[in-house]
């Protein structure tokens, strides 16, 4: 489909204008931004040439610091310096196994906890947005203009609340998100394209605070995720913590202040990193009491005290294999992702489980951002060499509803390929029942209490009927970002009651709007100008896409249908020239509504073409 090579008659052709697209790996301990300029994806470093941004945000007296500047104060200003905020995304206080491990003043609030800082109470979404903003600014400096599209990665095992929180953070940071991409899938893309791989691969991704395992089948440019599993609260951080506990025990230390705990944690991390290349690491620190800590950690002891953590990653691997219907012998290669996979005991355990040494020919810190950049480049419409590939991902955890007796009924089972939509019918159990409560859940367990509650809503206005007569259709739809949308509809009597909810993660749309407003509070004009600029970008995209569609498929329209679309196009062009955002938005919406039937017919033609036209050769060849 040469969508963007068809220029509007009379307009200058702009086929080689590259849209500024970036891939962001928003990690627990550090984050990266990458892009495709010409050729392979590259990580964008800072002015000092450092590729990583520590995922640390400090609310300093003079303002917000991000990255290395914040890192310098993580021990001295621990309460206002937020590290590993990714672990808090979409989580309530009750979700944290050990809230005391964190030196923050937590404020519990429905859905997602908050942190009380010097700069006020902050949601993890706002903290993450500071990191994303820093990455966006780095990219804009390097690319010479505003970012037009971003792919942000999330752990494959992130649930709906965590995905929605990540999307909200990106919106707050002013990033136009093209797609949320699962981290192991991004890594597989970077690896597979580099090595022209075919066959079934496992991606073992042990990051700073999350663990994912994904099993993918690579066939002729299609990256099909067969299954995924993981632990959203297990990563390199936990190895540091294990070392710290060992120090406290060995040196018989009294209870630590938050600053001392942070200091020891940093020393633990340094020792962990040193043990990758050495047989022993000295741990030396001075506590605020003046007491000195001076111990030696050997590689063998480190392996011993972290054995259970490594074992904890192997269960999800076995589950993922079982869900994919495969045995270890089916796996052609194991790709390691995440800085924590540098630990020799991790590599050894993975190698033993799969019966083959893992593949080491890529940088485990950078591969996720690189894969995200490649996808961003493609989704933004930049065409490059051999870009005829496709990602087919899955939903990591089952989605369902609460039914009688506090049990869950699964509507979409885990590892269903996305996008997916599934409908299930329910009925009333009382005569004249006019409302039905719907409780949306995510998880594998049978009891409601053991699953994550994503949303509760009520379908009202059900016409009074005898018990069991009403038919309520509940539809679950998961889009290509892995984000859920639920609709309920009663249709027996033709009187339709419908409601659609985005499961909440503790931030209402109003709250997000307020945060966005606040971030522009100093310049109200900025906000207006930005809104107009965004609508204009939308308009240009709509005009280009509609023109291209007409050039290709105008024969699908009757004369008067074509005239209506032309009129709507002309109206967008007129509004595009003015300054009235509301008028432009209305014109865009009218064009969009006016082309809906056309879009459906074009999709249908695509379906027919896929099996009859130029692709048939490939189909037949594969059949052989």
């Amino acid at each position, binding site marked *: 489909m040469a969508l963007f090579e068809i220029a509007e008659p009379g307009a200058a052709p702009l086929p080689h204008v590259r849209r500024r697209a970036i891939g962001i790996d928003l990690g627990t301990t550090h984050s990266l931004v990458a892009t495709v300029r010409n050729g392979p994806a590259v990580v964008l470093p800072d002015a000092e040439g450092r590729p990583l941004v520590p995922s640390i945000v400090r609310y300093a007296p003079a303002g917000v610091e991000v990255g290395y500047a914040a890192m310098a104060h993580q021990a001295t200003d621990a309460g206002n310096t937020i590290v590993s905020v990714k672990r808090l995304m979409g989580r309530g206080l009750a979700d944290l196994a050990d809230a005391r491990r964190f030196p923050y003043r937590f404020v519990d609030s429905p859905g997602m906890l908050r942190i009380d800082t010097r700069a006020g109470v902050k949601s993890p979404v706002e903290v993450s947005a500071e990191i994303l903003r820093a990455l966006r600014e780095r990219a804009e400096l390097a690319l010479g203009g505003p970012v037009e599209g971003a792919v942000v990665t999330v752990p494959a095992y992130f649930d709906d609340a965590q995905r929605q929180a990540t999307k909200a953070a990106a919106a707050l940071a002013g990033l136009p998100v093209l797609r949320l991409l699962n981290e192991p899938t991004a890594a597989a893309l970077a690896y597979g394209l580099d090595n022209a791989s075919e066959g079934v691969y496992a991606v073992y991704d042990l990051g700073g605070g999350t663990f994912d395992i994904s099993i993918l089948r690579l066939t002729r440019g299609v990256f099909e995720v067969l299954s995924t599993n993981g632990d959203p609260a297990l990563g390199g951080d936990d190895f540091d913590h294990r070392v710290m506990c060992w120090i406290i025990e060995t040196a018989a230390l009294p209870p630590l202040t938050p600053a001392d705990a942070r200091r020891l944690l940093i020393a633990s991390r340094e020792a962990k990193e040193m043990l990758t290349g050495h047989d022993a690491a000295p741990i030396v620190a001075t506590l605020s009491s003046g007491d000195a800590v001076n111990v030696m950690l050997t590689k063998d002891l480190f392996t011993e005290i972290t054995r259970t953590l490594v074992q904890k990653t192997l269960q999800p691997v076995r589950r993922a294999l079982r869900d994919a219907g495969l045995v270890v012998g089916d796996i052609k290669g194991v790709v390691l992702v995440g800085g924590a996979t540098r630990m020799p005991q991790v590599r050894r355990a993975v190698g033993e489980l799969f019966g083959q040494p893992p593949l080491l020919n890529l940088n485990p810190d950078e591969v996720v951002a690189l894969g995200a950049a490649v996808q961003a480049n493609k989704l*933004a419409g930049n065409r490059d060499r051999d870009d005829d590939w496709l990602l*087919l991902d899955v939903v990591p955890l089952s989605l369902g509803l609460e039914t009688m007796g506090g049990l869950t009924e699964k509507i979409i089972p885990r590892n269903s*390929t996305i996008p*997916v939509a599934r409908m299930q019918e329910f009925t009333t159990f009382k005569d004249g029942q006019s409302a039905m409560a719907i409780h949306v859940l995510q998880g594998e367990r049978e009891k409601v209490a053991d699953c994550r509650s994503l949303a509760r809503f009520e379908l009202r206005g059900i016409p009074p009927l005898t018990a069991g007569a009403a038919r309520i259709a509940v539809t679950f739809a998961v889009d*290509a970002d892995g984000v859920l949308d639920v609709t309920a509809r009663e249709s027996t009597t033709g009187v339709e009651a419908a409601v659609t909810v985005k499961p909440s993660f503790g931030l209402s749309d109003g709250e997000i709007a307020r945060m966005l407003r606040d971030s522009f509070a100093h310049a109200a004009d900025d906000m207006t100008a930005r809104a107009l600029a965004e609508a204009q970008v939308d308009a240009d995209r709509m005009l280009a*896409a509609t023109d291209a569609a007409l050039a290709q498929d105008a024969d699908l329209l009757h004369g008067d249908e074509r005239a209506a679309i032309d009129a709507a196009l002309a109206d967008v062009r007129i509004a595009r020239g003015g300054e009235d955002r509301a008028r432009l938005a209305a014109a865009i919406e009218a064009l969009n509504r006016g082309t809906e039937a056309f879009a459906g017919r074009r999709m249908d033609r695509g*379906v027919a073409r896929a*099996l009859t036209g130029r692709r048939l050769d490939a189909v037949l060849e594969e059949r052989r």
Partner: protein
Amino acid sequence: MLDFNRNHFELFALPLRFAIDTHALEAAYRALQGEVHPDRHAGGTPADQRAALQASALVNEAYRTLRSPASRAEYLLSLHGIDARIETDTALPLDFLERQLERREAAADAAAARDAPALESALADVRAESRALESRLAALLDGAADPALARTPVRELRFLVKAAEDLAALEAVLDEPVDG
């Protein structure tokens, strides 16, 4: 609007039969997603993107249905106007049920004894019985027989799919440490 009247076999350009060429199904699936997946329409209008989302979800659903022999058989019967879903009618032949009950009891004992090989052999049994049913179904559904005759074996096959899932879940528990 996408043509939702096309049945799943037509969608993948496959003959309307129970016995299918799975390689052809997979290749057609990849070709279709290559055309309709939302990633292919990221530069389109919101209407294009919505159409892509719907079409891609439909292709996924159709693929899921045809890939599994039990759901493929149920779907074929539904095209003949026969509801073979076990949820709507749980009655099954007595000898079949007796065999399954015995197997389930044996599996529960094996799980309690943490006897993984016994569970594995029970699973192999279920798979063998499933394959036998699939051959019978191919003869019934793809031959000249009345499709209604396939209703009971289809429901038996669905029962076996659930039994295999239950056995796999028991095995999964054995994988995990006793204290975990």
